């Protein structure tokens, strides 16, 4: 689709974060032709496209009723990011694909204007000339001064990578929905405030007019009214009408159900809060408005003013800014959310997908994942899941599945499935294709509220735009398909009055352009529920309902495959759709497997010891939800406990739904994790506390640095192995040094080897200058300790030597290590000083993979019943101990001290599993009476 000759290489995104990586020089004869863009710092994986911007960014645009589409702001707010990219032009593009404008007017049968709680629409579009692809999220905000009380806005995620947009559609949609929800919540609040003030003004005006009329009445006692009096009376009548209208509007905006807006954690400052408490609204140049704004903050002091009969001209007034529209507080929250989105989707698609799969898999390993994974990430969404899945004891033995079949919720939307859907859309357009069809599709797509009688009018415009040489390729729109298949519903739509003008204006603006727009997909959520869709326009849609469908909107992105199913129940259609999609796409397979009834399919899992048959990834997301089997009376270790007793994960149908809910509510978690993050930051000030979102690049960079420094440590110190062994086996490592920066750096690096006690805190203390206490060893497993030359420092050293049996001491100044002997095989694999890994991030991943393997060993060891409890009464403790030892050695292949590592992890797993309430509990301090040795360089 993209055929841009003017290739601009991506500049490497995070080059400042990584230490410069110098390619080793190859002899000339071995060298292959150099990558043509190597000089620009590009790697072969970087995207080559005609994009004029250096990396993805978010654009917020508005369709101003005064100047038309205009860009408002970008995130990141850095001109370098979008470079020469024409924001104005692109704003025009993205604003023009909003087929549905919200509408406030006088619907037939209603005397007063109705506010329309419109759902946002989500569109993907591409502009091959610009090399830009965008996820566009349209929303409308209310403004009393705007035409029809609405202001159309859109937020667009712009990327040069089409696949990224397509495959991350669900995630983008979910995240942008949160941002939009936040904006809208703030806007409703501001709008209500504005209405209240307006009402006061009107009330005042009425009183004034009334008095004036009375005076006039008294002034001329003749039997007729002067024209002036009539005018006054009319004015009064119109004010009365206006009051009723505004009261009605206020009622409508207030009737917006609060409950659901609480779902968005960003809007934590919910509407319960009185408006008086709200932050100040930024002042405008308009003195009247600024007065308003001031009064907004101190409402009781508001003095109403007279409203002139003739309203000011539309172009005279200055429209409110987005911030004013949305209440500063919410606006900043939205900006934070948007920059979070920008962080979240930063980087290559492969990277995003892998990390998503990674996360999904990690979530399944909830029994062990707390040990080494970044707790912030792990925490993300897991809690939500626990809440959303009701605990259900499974009636039978659910079938076991291989890893591939394990459902990975919302990870993949494969291109394949998308493409298949594209092909099935009957209205795939090209410039060469029939214009009529195209026009109809585009018309309906652009303005779904269009009544039949307006189509012609629009068609005229569309024709114009086509004739101007523009090629618009509609790759797939749900709206269009649903509209086509349900034309009767469309016909029943009523005629909007004011938005038409805007719409036609938009279209006419479009005609100016000469470029191609490919509307790749749209997914208005209404499209999925034709009945609701129908109902949404004549009267205010019940947002309660539509919100509930909101999450599904994203999923039903694929629903364009099978329009006939749209009317079906959500679950069914989803599953059907999924099962109908291209079989090459794994989501189809997964959903198939989801649909499979929980049969008792035998699954032979050759278990060497016959004790446990529960692979770690087999859990439900529930605490209660996993099963361990053990041979009941049999003590024979070689017994095969395969088919029947195989534990597996119960899949309740609600789970899939739950996984969808997750995206919607994960913001809650974010706020949670942010708070835990900040609490962590207070203890370990090494992390950047300023990072608004824990999954942002700061933690990414953090990891890279840690990996790099750990690698350095391993190369530099020959005694890295016993030091790492100390960390893995739960013996506190004290890093002693004079220079705080160096100590902190090493502590951060080594912290990647420290098993966590719980999800909530890493037992690492980066810098301490006071003497250590016994509780410190219970709490911290890695401590950076200041070496002080003064007599006070002697006390520190004294306590250190006193508690030496609990600690390993790494002295950075004298380059010595005092710790127990290590002769295992695990750490050498983890920390090979001759490793060819050079990059910090790579090494970090290497460590993670080795540690994950270790975790699974610890899991097996922990949950093997016969290793810890006798199989029958006559078994002695000695027999058990020897069985444990045998298992560790033969089955897990652990030698010497490695067993201690697994045993320590097993204790942590036990404690974690039994911990009733999640919290930062500190396990007991375990130690061994083993001699220590002094290592020197």
């Amino acid at each position, binding site marked *: 689709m993209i055929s841009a000759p003017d290739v601009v290489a991506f500049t490497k995104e995070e080059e400042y974060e990584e230490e410069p990586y110098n390619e080793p020089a190859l002899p000339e004869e071995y060298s292959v032709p150099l990558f043509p863009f190597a000089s620009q710092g590009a790697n072969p994986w970087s995207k080559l496209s005609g994009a004029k911007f250096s990396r993805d960014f978010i654009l917020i645009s508005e369709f101003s009723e005064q100047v038309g589409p205009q860009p408002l702001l970008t995130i990141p707010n850095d001109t370098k990011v979008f470079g020469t990219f024409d924001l104005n032009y692109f704003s025009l593009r993205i604003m023009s694909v909003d087929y549905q404008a919200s509408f406030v007017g006088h619907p037939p049968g209603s005397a007063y204007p109705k506010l329309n709680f419109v759902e946002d629409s989500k569109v993907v579009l591409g502009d091959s000339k610009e090399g830009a692809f965008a996820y566009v999220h349209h929303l409308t905000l209310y403004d009393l001064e705007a035409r029809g009380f609405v202001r159309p806005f859109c937020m667009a995620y712009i990327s040069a990578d089409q696949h990224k947009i397509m495959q991350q559609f669900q995630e983008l949609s979910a995240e942008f929905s949160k941002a939009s929800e936040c904006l809208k919540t703030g806007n409703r609040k501001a709008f209500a405030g504005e209405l209240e003030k307006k009402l006061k003004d009107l009330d005042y005006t009425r009183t004034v007019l009334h008095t004036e009329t009375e005076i006039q009445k008294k002034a001329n006692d003749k039997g007729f009214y002067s024209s002036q009096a009539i005018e006054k009376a009319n004015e009064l009548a119109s004010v009365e009408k206006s009051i009723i209208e505004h009261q009605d509007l206020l009622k409508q905006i207030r009737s917006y159900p609060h409950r659901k807006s609480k779902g968005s954690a960003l809007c934590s400052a919910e509407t319960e809060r009185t408006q008086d408490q709200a932050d100040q609204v930024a002042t405008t140049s308009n003195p009247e408005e600024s007065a308003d704004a001031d009064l907004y903050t101190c409402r009781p002091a508001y003095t109403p003013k007279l409203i002139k009969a003739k309203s000011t001209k539309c172009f005279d007034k200055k429209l409110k800014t987005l911030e004013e529209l949305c209440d500063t507080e919410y606006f900043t929250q939205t900006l934070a959310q948007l920059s979070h989105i920008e962080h979240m989707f930063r980087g290559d698609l492969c990277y995003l997908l892998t990390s998503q799969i990674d996360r999904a898999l990690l979530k399944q390993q909830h029994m062990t994942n707390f040990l080494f994974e970044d707790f912030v990430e792990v925490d993300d969404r897991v809690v939500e899941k626990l809440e959303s899945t009701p605990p259900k004891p499974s009636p039978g033995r659910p079938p076991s599945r291989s890893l591939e079949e394990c459902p990975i919720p919302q990870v993949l939307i494969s291109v394949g499935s998308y493409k298949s859907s594209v092909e099935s859309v009957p209205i795939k357009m090209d410039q060469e294709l029939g214009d009529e069809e195209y026009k109809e599709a585009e018309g309906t797509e652009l303005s779904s509220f269009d009544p039949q009688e307006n189509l012609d009018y629009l068609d005229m415009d569309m024709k114009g735009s086509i004739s101007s040489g523009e090629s618009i390729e509609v790759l797939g729109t749900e709206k269009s398909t649903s509209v086509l298949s349900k034309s009767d519903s469309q016909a029943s739509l009523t005629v909007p009055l004011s938005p038409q003008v805007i719409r036609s204006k938009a279209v006419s603006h479009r005609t100016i352009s000469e470029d191609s727009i490919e509307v790749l997909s749209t997914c208005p959520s209404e499209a999925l529920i034709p009945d609701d869709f129908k109902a949404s326009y004549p009267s205010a849609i019940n947002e309660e309902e539509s919100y509930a469908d909101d999450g599904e909107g994203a999923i039903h992105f694929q629903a364009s495959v099978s329009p006939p199913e749209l009317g079906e129940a959500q679950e069914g259609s989803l599953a059907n759709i999924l099962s109908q999609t291209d079989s090459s796409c794994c989501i189809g397979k997964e959903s198939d497997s989801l649909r499979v009834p929980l049969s008792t399919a035998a699954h032979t899992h050759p278990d060497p010891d016959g004790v446990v048959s529960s692979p770690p990834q087999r859990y439900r997301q529930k605490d209660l939800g996993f099963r361990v089997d053990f041979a009941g009376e049999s003590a024979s270790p070689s017994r095969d406990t395969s088919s*029947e007793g195989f534990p597996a994960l119960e899949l309740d149908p609600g789970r899939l739904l739950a996984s969808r809910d997750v995206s919607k509510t994960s913001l809650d978690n974010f706020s949670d994790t942010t708070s835990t993050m900040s609490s962590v930051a207070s203890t370990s000030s090494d992390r950047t506390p300023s990072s608004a979102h824990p999954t942002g690049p700061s933690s990414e960079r953090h990891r890279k640095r840690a990996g790099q420094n750990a690698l350095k440590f391993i190369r530099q110190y020959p005694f890295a192995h016993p030091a790492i062994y100390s960390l893995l086996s739960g013996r506190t490592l004290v890093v002693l040094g004079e220079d705080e920066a160096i100590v902190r750096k090493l502590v951060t690096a080594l912290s990647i080897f420290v098993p966590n006690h719980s999800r909530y805190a890493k037992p690492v203390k980066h810098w301490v200058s006071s003497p250590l206490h016994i509780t410190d060893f*219970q709490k911290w497993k890695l401590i950076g300790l200041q070496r002080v030359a003064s007599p006070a420092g002697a006390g520190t050293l004294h306590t250190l030597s006193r508690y030496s049996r609990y600690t390993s001491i790494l002295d950075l100044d004298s380059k010595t290590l005092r710790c127990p002997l290590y002769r295992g095989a695990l750490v050498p694999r983890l920390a090979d000083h001759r490793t060819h890994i050079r990059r910090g991030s790579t090494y970090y991943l290497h460590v993670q993979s080795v540690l994950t393997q270790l975790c699974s060993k610890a899991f097996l060891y922990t*949950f093997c019943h016969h290793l810890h409890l006798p199989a029958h009464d006559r078994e002695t403790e000695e027999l058990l101990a020897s069985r444990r030892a045998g298992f560790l050695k033969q089955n897990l292949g652990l030698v010497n001290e490695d067993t201690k590592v697994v045993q320590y992890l097993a204790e942590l797993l036990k404690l974690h599993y039994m911990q009733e309430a999640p919290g930062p509990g500190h396990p007991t301090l375990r130690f061994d009476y083993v001699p220590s040795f002094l290592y020197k360089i």
Partner: protein
Amino acid sequence: KKSPLQTIGEEQTQNPYTELLVLKAHHDIVRFLVQLDEYRFASAGDDGIVVVWNAQTGEKLLELNGHTQKITAIITFPSLEVCEEKNQLVLTASADRTVWDCDTGRQVQKVSCFQSTVKCLIVLQRLDVWLSGGNDLCVWNRKLDLLCKTNHLSDTGISALIEIPKNCVVAAVGKELIIFRLVAPAGESLEWDILEIKRLLDHQDNILSLVNVNDLSFVTGSHVGEMIIWNILDWTVQARECNFWDPSPQLDTQQEIKLCQKPNDISIHHFTWDEENVFAAVGRGLYVYNLQMKRVIACQKTAHDSSVLHIAKLPNRQLISCSEDGSVRIWELREKQQLAAEPAPTGFFNMWGFGRVNKQASQPVKKQQENATTYSLELIGDLIGHSSSVEMFLYFEDHGLVTCSADHLIILWKNGERESGLRSLKLFQKLEENGDLYLAV
């Protein structure tokens, strides 16, 4: 010259305590630990707080706030077997001259009619009364009614109290031991009464420790290192040992050593006992006194860096001591079979000769034993955790050791291996509860 402190390296294969849990609740010196039942204990100290803990999990169960000053004595008042309510009372005495007792967090009653600080408490379960010792001795019933009291005894007050048969109690007041008899209401007299019966003046210095050893005798220890074993029935001296500072009689410089040593080094802080031996914490050392042989059979002259404050005998021939130096040490009494001169008749002789004060008989025995030192105290492990003086400890058969210290902490020492097994047991129990455990048929 001092014998060097015995030390043990990092390798302590016999030390079972490989897990510890630090319990934090107090904000001043924790001086007392008292066991409530098989899994609970209470701690009390200078901050006036009593905290009830779960010895298994280390969980803080209750915090009892009531005292405004240091707690000077704590004792449990077990409910009677016949009593319907099984609630256990805890009596605490404090420098603010109040005694109150608590039962599951509730302050039952507060008594504050004392003229002096109550320094010790004792419960006579048989009579269902309790006694408080300060400058005088008071007798109370379960309902905290004052039954009777003695006259003002001394300004220093009673430092220790024990119960002996025939409704008698022994009180240590300064250098004296005073024996009181409690007269329960019987027949026509409905009044309780307490009568002073005898004063024993055998000690040279203040009596620091006073314990019952067995049904036949009790033992006292004084500041200058005198240990006297008394007949519990007729209150006569059964044996006396006052040369702890140097148990080897071969040395003629006994007097000189006695002079050059500070009295603190030889003061007897605590006793413990088993069927055969009395274990004394004398200064920094530990001494094992065999009741049958009437002599010290084993000793560690410098068991700790500083005074030993509390010792206890474990069932498995182990002795635990804690000291002002902040450490807890585990000792084992080992028999050395280097000499065949194990005098079987001696033990026999002493068995039936026990009870008679037979100095002549004990002398030859002593001589005989000196040639063959058959016992020794071996250090098998030390527990280092406290940063200040370890005041007391409590041994739970099933849960390990609890130590309390002047560093405001309580540490629960546990057998790591056993804890690991227990955790596994719990884990699988929880799995079973959740219905996640399947028995393969």
